[in-house]
């Protein structure tokens, strides 16, 4: 148990959070909580722990909620960043039904967060920046007036600069767009190629809203004739003309000349695509493509060749006289001499399409495009604060949500999973579980003082008699979706020493099972599992032959863990 400053505090907290008698009495619970919060002797670690514990508390009324928030107010002004962030998270979670309170808290935490972003400690700076980005997902305008704090400094490490550039993209608004773009433009000529490219992509994403200014900046950058800059600018243009068709004209005027500076695969693909789709507006498009066709034999990237085929065919439709000859040559090369099968297949496909007739080609290649403004390619809408409030002040914003999902899947499956043979259902689940983990030793979930006796031999008659004579000690409902295999469940329960007395066949409606277990003091736990597919939930009823709340709780948690794991693995 963490040391929270004194024995009394520990006692109080334990009382409040574990004792069902106190929990049942709301007034006593509340008093205990208030007393704990008011403890002034707690140091910053104790305060952080208290805030963590309080996350489990559900205030019963609005009055009580605001009461608690008032008490915790002073924690928001603490000098310790851990305490301030812990308090912020608690506020956000407790006030989940009051968005205006949440916004208020986020305004108050702006100061400490910005101070952390400019801290001497780079690590603190990085973590604070991750949290700032998290907040900006829901409140994009929140830090707009403080954009200067996110300007990158020359000596900062690369990962911090990248985060700051992302933040700058997200806080752009009408007032600061001029300065932010100028700053980003400065970064585009940075000596570090990676950073320059990141800055250019950032300008590209701002361009979706402020198209004209950004396109102008990007065009100027093309004039520098630097390879690493040109390739990224062309890629950005390619993405931009799709989303903002109004800038196509400007882009087409900027393109001529940059083919000399592009050497890498991505850049070439982007350029070729642009020439194919908008070639009619670019005067020298056929000649540039001709260059590529001449050198197709020495072209190393198959993706570039594929793009070339499509682009040339498109251009042929709008400028047939200029492209006919080289299209023929290209198709000949791809079909006869090309070794990469994907490229060859595409060449064959286009050749056969041409044989069918030019109208057919036009119909297929120039069909109406999807309208990007319909929102298919738009960024996800602002997410409400409640979607990430529980991740605040944890490691989730630091890794990013997608990476965290990967990590927790790998880790969670290993920690709680009991050993299962290679049944088909298991093998089909989750490519994230590596092969060798199937033979791992099972880990019994931590059940505290509960020790279930293995090899319990209970006859069905005895079970039935005992079942009917006892009253239900605990009832609970767990969510459950879809089908499952009873064998898997039985095996899993076996591992934690829970015996299955009887179980319905798979597919029976409703599905029932009866389980029994005994702990080392002789206390019997009899369980009924009832699954009704129409409700998508599993109902658990537990009967105990001696009333012992502690052991009952432990047993329930073991059961929940097993069932939860089966659910996860199956899904």
């Amino acid at each position: 148990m963490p040391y929270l400053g004194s024995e009394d505090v520990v006692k109080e907290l334990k009382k409040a959070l574990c004792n069902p008698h106190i929990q049942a009495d709301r007034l006593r619970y509340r008093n205990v909580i208030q007393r704990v919060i008011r403890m002034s002797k707690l140091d910053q670690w104790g305060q952080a722990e208290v805030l963590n514990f309080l996350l489990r508390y559900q205030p019963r009324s609005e009055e009580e909620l605001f009461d608690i928030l008032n008490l915790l107010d002073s924690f928001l002004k603490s000098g310790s960043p851990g305490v301030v962030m812990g308090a912020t998270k608690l506020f956000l979670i407790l006030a989940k039904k009051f968005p205006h309170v949440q916004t208020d808290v986020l305004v108050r935490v702006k100061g400490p967060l910005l101070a952390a972003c400019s801290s001497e400690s780079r690590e603190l700076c990085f973590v604070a920046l991750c949290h700032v980005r998290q907040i900006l997902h829901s409140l994009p305008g929140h830090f707009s007036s403080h954009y200067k704090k996110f300007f990158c400094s020359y000596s900062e490490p690369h990962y911090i600069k990248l985060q700051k550039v992302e933040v700058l993209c997200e806080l752009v608004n009408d007032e600061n767009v001029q300065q932010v773009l100028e700053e980003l433009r400065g970064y585009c000529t940075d000596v570090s190629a990676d950073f320059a490219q990141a800055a250019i992509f950032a300008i590209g994403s701002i361009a979706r809203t402020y198209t004209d200014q950004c396109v102008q900046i990007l065009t100027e950058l093309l004039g520098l004739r630097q390879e690493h800059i040109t390739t990224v600018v062309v890629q950005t243009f390619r993405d931009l003309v799709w989303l903002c068709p109004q800038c196509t004209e400007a882009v087409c005027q900027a393109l001529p000349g940059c083919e000399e500076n592009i050497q890498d695969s991505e850049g070439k693909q982007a350029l070729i695509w642009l020439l194919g789709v908008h070639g009619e507006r670019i005067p020298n498009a056929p000649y540039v493509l001709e260059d590529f066709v001449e050198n197709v034999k020495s072209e190393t990237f198959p993706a570039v060749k594929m793009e070339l085929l499509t682009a040339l065919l498109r251009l042929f439709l709008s400028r047939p006289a200029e492209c006919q000859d080289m299209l023929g040559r290209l198709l000949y090369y791809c079909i006869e001499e090309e070794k990469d099968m994907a490229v060859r297949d595409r060449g064959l496909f286009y050749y056969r399409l041409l044989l069918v007739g030019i109208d057919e080609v036009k119909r297929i290649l120039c069909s109406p495009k999807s309208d990007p403004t319909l929102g298919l390619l738009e960024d996800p809408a602002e997410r409400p604060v409640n979607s990430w409030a529980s991740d605040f002040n944890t490691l989730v914003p630091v890794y990013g949500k997608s990476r965290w999902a990967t990590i927790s899947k790998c880790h969670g499956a290993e920690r709680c999973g009991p050993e299962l043979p290679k049944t088909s259902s298991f093998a089909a689940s989750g490519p994230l579980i590596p092969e060798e983990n199937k033979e791992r030793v099972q880990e019994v979930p931590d059940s505290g003082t509960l020790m279930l006796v293995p090899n319990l031999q209970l006859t069905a008659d005895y079970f039935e008699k005992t079942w009917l004579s006892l009253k239900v000690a605990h009832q609970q409902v767990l969510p459950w979706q879809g089908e499952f295999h009873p064998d898997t469940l039985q095996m899993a329960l076996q591992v934690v020493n829970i015996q299955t007395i009887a179980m319905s066949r798979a597919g029976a409606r409703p599905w029932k099972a009866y389980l029994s277990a005994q702990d080392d003091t002789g206390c019997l736990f009899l369980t009924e599992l009832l699954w009704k597919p129409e409700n998508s939930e599993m109902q658990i009823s537990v009967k105990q032959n001696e009333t012992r709340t502690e052991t009952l709780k432990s047993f329930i948690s073991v059961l929940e863990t097993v069932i939860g794991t089966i659910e996860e693995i199956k899904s």
Partner: protein
Amino acid sequence: MISQFFILSSKGDPLIYKDFRGDSGGRDVAELFYRKLTGLPGDESPVVMVTTGGRRHHEGRHFIHIRHSGLYLVVTTSENVSPFGLLELLSRLATLLGDYCGSLGEGTISRNVALVYELLDEVLDYGYVQTTSTEMLRNFIQTEAVVSKPFSLFDLSSVGLFGAETQQSKVAPSSAASRPVLSSRSDQSQKNEVFLDVVERLSVLIASNGSLLKVDVQGEIRLKSFLPSGSVRREVSLFPGYGPGIRVDEVSFHSFVNLDEFESHRILRLQPPQGELTVMRYQLSDDLPSPLPFRLFPSVQWDRGSGRSTLEPKPRSLNVRLHLPLPRGVISLSQELSSPEQKAELAEGALRWDLPRVQGGSQLSGLFQMDVPRPPGPPSHGLSTSAPPLGLGPASLSFELPRHTCSGLQVRFLRLAFRPCGNANPHKWVRHLSHSDAYVIRI
């Protein structure tokens, strides 16, 4: 909570390793960390890393670390904990180790391994933080710190002499505060001293046309107290000079500070424990009361490939260094500097101009001539003389300004209400210092 804690040297040698929960794979986790750290791709942050796949024992383990004085202080955990809390713990541990061992470095840690382990035992129990307060820890720590050479106040010949204003107008070497704070023996010969530092970091960005884009000052008032514990009551009141015209944007105080008289008289009272603590942190942006310390007038001419830089610093400053990245391919440099003690050299694609001591109000100039290879391009384009070639980066200055604070905040007096038990009156050392965090002038 925390599973393990270890300290690595800058080359990855493990100096300290402690396992708190016994649920990990063993000492080789330190090596795993260092390998991950050095093998990390450039755009991923090393601050928090995780192991996925690989051996079962190390799966899903998060490594969180800070770099302090060239050492890596790392904790591992398997749970989803608060990163702010852990980073704070690591910084606090770094300060604590520095207090106990004198300073934090590879040498001091290697000499004081037993003390470090004892400290860790008391601070963390089964991975939970018990206390990091020096007062409480002092009761439990028995081991003495080992120092490399005995401290002597009369050692005035050390480099980096810093003036310090005191009542007695004495001067203390800059290493004066770096001895171990907490010796349990009541050593009569140890002086009772209090060191107060007002340290400001200045962050400035100036555009190529001379306009000020951004200015930011982050300040801290730090107190390091060697006052022995035997005294009955000790109180320190500071009076930060908050006269007219001085304002700060954001202020935060340590929890020990008593703010009763802050509003009225701007007095801070506290009862400091032994060791180092940050009394107050403040921030100021965009509106400095005093003019900027340095102005740079670069003029660059490209047909001859020469550039002239003129610096005009205001107050006296030390250890000024100008760093100017140059276009690729610059090979030779010839220079004319206005004073013999400066030197300039080409290093790593950049020009470095070192000026050890610069007087306030002076103007220094340097003429640098270099050969810039012309970038290949069609002749019709030609080099525009208005835009500098690519790669001539922003000039960044790094400097220290002793006895000067950019925000104007000064500590007026430091009063100790202290009843010594037969010891001499305690010494008080106060110093103000500003140094550059990032002073960038665009060309």
